[in-house]
C-alpha cells in the first residue's frame, strides 16, 4: 500500500431543502485500503458517495479522485460503483446487460463481452447468459449487479450498502471477492450501517452521524485509542449480584449488563486490576475477566450516543 490518496474530500457540504445532509466532511482514503464509511441510516452515507461520484454536486468543498480534478463520471472506467438502490433492465438478456453497463463505462464491446462471460461463468451463471434478467432469482440478479460493478477491472470500488438484501451465501461470496480484489491492490470504499461487517472487512473506517464525521482512522488505531478500559465480565450467580460494585462511578464509567455477562467500561486512568480486586474482595466468584478491544458498534455508540445511532425518525428518501 502506498500513501497516494485515491479519494480526497475536503470540507464537503450538501444541503437539501429541509436539512443539511452532509456537513463539512473530509475524507482521505489511501490507495489499496479497504475503507468503511459507517453510520446509521440517514447519516449521509449515500449523499457522500453520490458526491464522490459527482452524481450530485457539493454546495461547498472539493473532491479529488486519483489526485485528479476530473469528475467521478469521467473516471467511471476506473471506478466500480454499486449504488444502494440498484436495479436492472428486466427484459434485457444477462450478457447483453453486463456488456452494455461495461460499455457505458468506456470498455470496448468485445472486451466487455469476454470479461462479462468469464465473470458470469465464475459466479455460476453461465447457463443464464442468454436469458432475460426477469428469469433470474433475486440472488442471481444481485450477482449480475455485482459483476457489472467489477467487470471493467476498476482501481477503486465504491459500494453503497453492498450486502443489504443479499442472502448469506451471496454475502460470503461477495466478501471473498471484495477481499481478493483488495489484496490485489484495488482500493475499496464501502458504506454500511452494520458495524460487525465493517469490523471484519475494513482496515480503515470513518464513522459519520447526522451528516458529520465522528471519527476516522485505521481500525487498529481506533480500537487502540478506545480500548484498554473495556472489560468483559462474567460471575457466578449472574452480574446482578455485583450490581452495587458496577454502580461505583469512581471506578466504572459504564456497564452494559447482558445478564450472564457484562461489558464494563472503566473510568479513564483507572486500572482493570482494581476492578478485579474489588470483585474478589466482594466475594464474587469470577468466571470470565477479559480486557477486551471494544467492538466497533460499542465505540460508535459510546461516541455518538445510542440516540444518534438510531435511524432518523423521518428519513427523506429523496435525499438520503
Amino acid at each position, binding site marked *: 500500500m502506498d500513501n497516494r490518496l485515491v479519494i480526497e474530500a475536503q470540507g464537503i457540504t450538501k444541503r437539501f431543502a429541509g436539512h443539511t445532509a452532509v456537513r463539512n466532511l473530509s475524507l482521505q482514503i489511501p490507495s489499496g485500503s479497504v475503507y468503511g464509511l459507517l453510520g446509521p441510516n440517514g447519516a449521509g452515507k449515500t449523499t457522500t458517495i453520490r458526491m464522490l*461520484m459527482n*452524481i450530485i454536486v457539493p454546495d461547498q468543498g472539493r473532491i479529488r479522485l486519483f489526485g485528479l480534478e476530473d469528475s467521478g463520471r469521467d473516471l467511471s472506467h476506473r471506478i466500480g460503483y454499486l*449504488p444502494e438502490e*440498484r*436495479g*436492472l433492465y428486466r427484459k434485457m438478456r444477462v450478457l447483453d446487460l453486463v456488456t*452494455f453497463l461495461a460499455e*457505458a463505462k468506456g470498455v470496448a464491446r468485445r472486451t466487455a463481452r469476454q470479461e462479462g462471460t468469464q465473470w458470469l461463468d465464475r459466479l455460476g451463471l453461465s447457463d443464464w447468459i442468454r436469458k432475460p434478467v426477469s428469469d433470474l432469482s433475486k440472488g442471481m440478479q444481485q450477482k449480475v449487479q455485482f459483476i457489472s460493478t467489477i467487470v471493467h477491472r476498476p482501481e477503486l470500488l465504491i459500494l453503497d450498502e453492498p450486502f443489504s438484501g443479499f442472502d448469506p451465501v451471496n454475502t460470503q461470496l461477495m466478501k471473498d471477492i471484495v477481499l481478493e480484489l483488495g489484496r490485489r491492490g484495488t482500493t475499496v470504499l464501502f458504506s454500511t450501517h452494520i458495524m460487525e461487517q465493517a469490523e471484519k472487512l475494513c482496515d480503515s473506517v470513518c464513522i459519520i452521524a447526522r451528516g458529520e464525521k465522528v471519527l476516522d482512522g485505521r481500525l487498529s488505531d481506533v480500537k487502540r485509542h478506545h480500548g484498554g478500559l473495556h472489560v468483559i465480565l462474567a460471575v457466578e450467580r449472574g452480574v446482578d449480584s455485583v450490581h452495587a460494585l458496577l454502580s461505583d462511578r469512581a471506578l466504572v464509567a459504564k456497564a452494559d449488563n447482558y445478564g450472564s455477562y457484562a461489558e464494563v467500561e472503566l473510568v479513564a486512568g483507572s486500572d482493570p486490576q482494581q476492578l478485579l480486586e474489588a470483585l474478589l474482595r466482594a466475594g464474587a466468584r469470577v468466571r470470565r475477566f477479559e480486557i477486551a478491544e471494544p467492538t466497533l458498534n460499542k465505540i460508535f455508540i459510546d461516541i455518538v450516543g445510542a440516540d444518534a445511532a438510531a435511524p432518523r425518525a423521518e428519513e427523506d*428518501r*429523496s435525499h438520503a
Partner: protein
Amino acid sequence: MRKIWVVVRREFVEKVRNKWFIISTVLGPLLMASFVVLPILMAERGGADRRIVVVDLGTEGLADRLVRTLRPPGPVSATLLPAEVADLTRVADSLTALVGVKEIDGYLIISDEAVEDGMAEYRGSNVSSMADMQILERVLRETVMTERLGRAGVDAGVVQQARIPVRMRTLSIRGGKVTEGSGESAFILAYAVWLVLYMAILLYGVQVMGAVVEEKTSRVIELLISSLRPFQLLAGKVVGVGAVGLFQLAIWGVCAWLLFQERELVLRLVGIDAGPAGGFAFPAVPLETIVIVLTYFLLGYFLYAAMFAAVGAMSNSDAEARQAQTPVIMLLIIPTVLMLGILQQPDGGMAVSLSLIPFCSPIAMPVRWAAATVPIEELALSIAFLVIALLLVVWVAARIYRVGILMYGKRPSPKELWRWVRTT
C-alpha cells in the same frame, strides 16, 4: 459521443427485439392491405342485393320507368306493385311485415303527387345507409324531372340531352404550375400526413416517457448515472427511440408502396378480379413533401420526446406519468382539433398561425404543405421558430430530467420544478 452511441444502440436493439415492435410492424401492412381490399369487397358485396318494392298509386308509368332505371347493375333492384289509395294501409302493413322478415329491404310509395309537389315516401330497414338513400333519391329526382319535362311538352330528345351530367375535374396549382394531383388527392394526402405525424409523434414520444419511467422505477438509473451524464442518457434515449420510429415508418412506407404497386396481385390473392376501379386512389407523393414531412417529424418528435422525457423523470410510476402527460398531449391535440379548419382553408389566418406556432407547426405545416402552396418564407420562418423552441425545450427538459431521475417520493409542484430548472 461514444457513450451516447452505446445508449442509442441499446435502446434500438432492445426496442426492435421487443414483441410489441414486431407485432405492430407486421400489423401495419395488414391494416394497409385491408384498406386496399375492404372497399372493393364491400362494393362487390353491395352489388344488386338491395331489394325494394315500388308501390304505384297511379302514376301513369312514372313508377314503371323508375323500376326500370333501378335495374341491375345498380345496387338496388325494385319490383313494381300497383295499388289503390284505399288499400294503401293494408298493402303497407303486409310490406312492413316482409321487411321484418328480411324478404325485402324497404318500399317506396309513389303517387302522382311526386310529379306535382315532389312528394314520395320510403320506408325501410336501410334508411341509415347514406349510399342507398343517395342512389334512390338521385334516380327518383331524375325520373320525376324527366316526367315533368315530358308533361310540359318538351321533346324527348331534348330531355335526354338535358340529363347528361356534368363532371368537373379538379387540378391543384402548386408553385405556379398545374399538377397531376386532383383536389381530392391533395386532401387525402394532407389527411394521411396528419394521421402519420400525429400517430408517430405521440406513439414514439410516449415510448420515450415509458423508457424513462422504467429506468426510474427499476432503479437501473442509479447504475447508469454513475457512468453516463444525464444529457448523454437523455440524448441516447431520444435518438434511439426516434431511430426505432424511423425504422418502423420506413418498413411501413415500403410496404404501402409495394402494396400499391402490386395491388392487383393482392386483390387476386383474396379472390377479387381487379376491375379498372381498383380500390382507393393512392395520391402521388412529391419528393419535397416527403422531405418536409420527415423534417417536421424529426423536429416535432424531438420537441415532444424531450417534454415526455421530462414528464417521465418527474413521475414515480407509469400511472403517475400517464396523468402528468396530459398537458403535453393537449399541445399535440390542438392542431388535430383544428385540422378541418386547416384543410378547408390552408391559407387562412388560423392555418398560417398554427403552422408558425412551434408546438403546433410539426403537424400543421406539413398538412398545409400537402394541401396547398406554402410560401417559402413562411416555411423558413416556421422551421426557425420550431428549432428555437426545440433548443429551449431540450434545455429545460434536460435540467428537469437531471434532477428528476434521482428523486423519489411525491411529484414536484410547479414551484419545485422551476427550482430544478434553475439549479446548476
